[in-house]
């Protein structure tokens, strides 16, 4: 093979192939969006886009569908789960790379990844039979009892302490997204160049100072990618949340009481929906979820750009 062919043509062909495949991914995503929009068109036409988005009633009998309660539920559960999961998953990542003895590293990483290997229906069943009673007896009943005696105004905010509702579903969701945040963070931390760390140690830094000043800043990109992936996972998680959240679209939501998310509404009703408008509203809900994912990602990108610009200034 002539030299120039190998160099120039090879590069050209390679770039074309990967770009074409990547373009396939974009195409697939557009196709998903198109299917959802097409399917949800009837609902958007009937209620209007804003009418659908802000409608507070979800009633299959009177065929009035509004996305507001499940939309709120999705935002609440995802944000809370992410907040809960962030530090433990980062801690697990840092611990397994920087602190754990060598023999423990692989098994630790392996176990965290194992959290991702359990089907979500398993989380759901475990949630109903183990977690929910635990949450009810250890967290909700004592808190409720305390509030009833000391701060009665809290009672309506807390909601019924049955163990099934927002709190339990957030806990399970947080657990489920840990491997996504933790794995990517771990890989990023493992790739921090040894020289950088050794330079710090040579200056007499403690381990924690090395982690704080070198490891975390260097691995920030990977950590952030993990957070974004975890958030995406939280937005779309269906089965476990559906089994634990109590599925009520009655506003206002309370801490302990039942709520609903967009994914749970879709999962609950999709297989049994027969009315055209009902089905269309579920697909419209999917489209709204897609928009939410789009917006959160754009927001995340802004944050990332901000982080980068600060870095340059410094």
């Amino acid at each position, binding site marked *: 093979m002539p030299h120039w062919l190998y160099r120039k043509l090879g590069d050209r062909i390679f770039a074309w192939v990967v770009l074409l495949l*990547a373009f396939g991914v974009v195409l697939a995503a557009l196709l998903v969006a198109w299917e959802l929009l097409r399917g949800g068109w009837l609902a958007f036409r009937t209620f209007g886009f804003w009418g659908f988005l802000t409608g507070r009633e979800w009633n299959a009998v009177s065929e009035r569908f509004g996305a507001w309660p499940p939309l709120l539920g999705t935002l609440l559960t995802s944000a809370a789960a992410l907040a809960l999961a962030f530090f433990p998953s980062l801690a697990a990542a840092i611990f397994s790379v920087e602190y754990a003895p060598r023999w423990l590293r692989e098994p630790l990483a392996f176990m965290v990844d194992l959290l991702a290997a359990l089907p979500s229906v398993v989380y759901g069943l475990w949630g109903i039979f183990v977690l929910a009673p635990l949450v009810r007896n250890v967290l909700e009943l004592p808190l409720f009892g305390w509030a009833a005696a000391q701060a009665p105004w809290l009672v309506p905010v807390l909601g019924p302490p049955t163990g099934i509702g927002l709190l339990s579903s957030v806990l399970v969701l947080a657990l489920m997204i840990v491997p996504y945040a933790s794995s990517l963070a771990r890989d990023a931390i493992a790739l921090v160049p040894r020289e950088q760390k050794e330079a710090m140690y040579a200056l007499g830094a403690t381990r924690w100072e090395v982690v704080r000043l070198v490891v975390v800043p260097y691995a920030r990109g990977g950590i952030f990618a993990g957070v974004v992936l975890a958030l995406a996972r939280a937005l779309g998680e269906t089965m476990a949340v559906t089994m634990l959240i109590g599925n009520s679209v009655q506003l206002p939501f309370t801490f302990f009481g039942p709520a609903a998310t967009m994914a749970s509404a879709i999962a609950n009703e*999709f297989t049994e929906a027969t009315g055209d408008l009902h089905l269309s509203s579920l697909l419209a809900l999917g489209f709204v979820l897609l928009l939410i994912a789009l917006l959160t990602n754009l927001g995340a990108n802004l944050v990332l750009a901000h982080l980068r610009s600060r870095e340059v200034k410094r």
Partner: protein
Amino acid sequence: MNLRRRRLRDGLMVGLLLLGTLLVLLPLVMILAYVFVQGVGALNWNFFTQGPRPPGEAGGGMLPAIVGSLIIDFIALAIAAVFGLAAGVVLAEYPDHRLNPLLRLVSDVMAGLPAILMGLVAFALVVRPMGHFSGFSGAVALALLMIPIIARATEGVLRLIPWELREAGLALGLPRWRVILNLVLPAAKGGILTGLMLALARGAGEAAPLLFTAFGNPFLVFDPLRPMDSLPLKIYVYAISPYEDWHRQAWGAALLLAFLIMISSYLARRALRARGQGG
């Protein structure tokens, strides 16, 4: 700040990190123990060698579901790996390409959609034109779930490979594609593998997108163009049934599924390490 305070803080942080790790691992152990206790009784010879039996009859098994899961997940991972790796390479190695912002956005957005909607798309894309359900259409639905995870993981880890490595390769006179294929990707294989395994785990446990694509089949099938059973489908159907016996089998299937993913993840890591030492 004196040394003692710094040491103290260091020790405190070790404690906190350990606590965070335990906070993650404790529920995992609880769940695994729960699944194990519930499911281990269902695992016997019949479970692995027979097809499903109607309720109330002894000796039903999961053979068609096990075979179906293996075939569907393998095809799905193959499809997703090709597209996901390519997308990751584009994102990391051609950082200035115009496609990139859009590509990154769509893959992140896709990761946030409920799995059932991917089934819907695969139905429109594969089942409707073919006129019947098939294992292949299920694999397409799962691949749609897996692609963003692989793409993001690949991108993330490729970005962390120092540019010096690429420059060294180019300086040696290697064309860019050889640098990417022979230097960058091998250097990043650990992270890429994590991505592949996460994606496999994500896809292999989903039942909802398979309901109207792979559909399920009580008979043993090897042809991916026919309706095919899978473990999550069986777990789903058996878990909602009223029969104790089926519940036990559902737990057994859940245990097996987790075990299969665990084993494949473990084997992949080991193969990687062995190769790494050899080369």
